[in-house]
């Protein structure tokens, strides 16, 4: 049973560039959430996608955008990169519902901005 997979594992960009990160959810899951984890910090919620729509958003600027495809996979796009965007970007998948569902995480994409 394949877990959450993310690509690429590492990425180096320069300020002002744009980046796209990809995520395939765990088999059977329909919801994808994206988190940013700075060094030494806990993950911070960026947004969540269900049924190809952004359902919820954390405190992140519009430079961060996303997409979910009919097969439930997802992309995170970041425009006009800043040095402060350097972080580990984590994708988590789960089943959408009223009760608290555990989210299962991939190993992330390490993004470095020069």
């Amino acid at each position, binding site marked *: 049973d394949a877990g959450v997979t993310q690509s690429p594992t590492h990425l180096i960009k320069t300020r002002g560039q744009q980046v796209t990160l990809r995520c395939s959810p765990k088999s059977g899951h329909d919801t994808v959430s994206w988190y940013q984890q700075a060094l030494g910090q806990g993950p911070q919620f960026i947004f969540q996608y269900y049924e190809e729509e952004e359902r919820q958003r954390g405190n992140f600027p519009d430079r961060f955008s996303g997409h979910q495809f009919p097969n439930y996979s997802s992309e995170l796009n970041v425009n006009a990169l800043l040095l402060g965007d350097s972080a580990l970007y984590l994708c988590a998948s789960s089943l959408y519902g009223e009760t*608290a569902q*555990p989210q299962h995480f991939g190993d992330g994409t390490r993004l470095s901005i020069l």
Partner: protein
Amino acid sequence: EDQVTQSPEALRLQEGESSSLNCSYTVSGLRGLFWYRQDPGKGPEFLFTLYSAGEEKEKERLKATLTKKESFLHITAPKPEDSATYLCAVQAIQTGANNLFFGTGTRLTVIP
């Protein structure tokens, strides 16, 4: 505003020396509290979900408990392979389905 505070920030234990990690939380209505383990360079690995005060969950050397204000992760007779960062997260009823709010974690080192 939702808040999660984990203590201590770092903990060093001798192999076999039992201890507890604390997660204090403030949330308007708790939908669930989650414990994760994170190894360096990896994503968080799900350990437990707790839903209501008084609930307990166990897995091997780990036991998680929940009160109305805090959760504890008890580690009994730890081994070096238990070394990792342990993250606590809450999901609040008001913020909708599946949005997790994390603490900054406790970095555990178990010395042989």
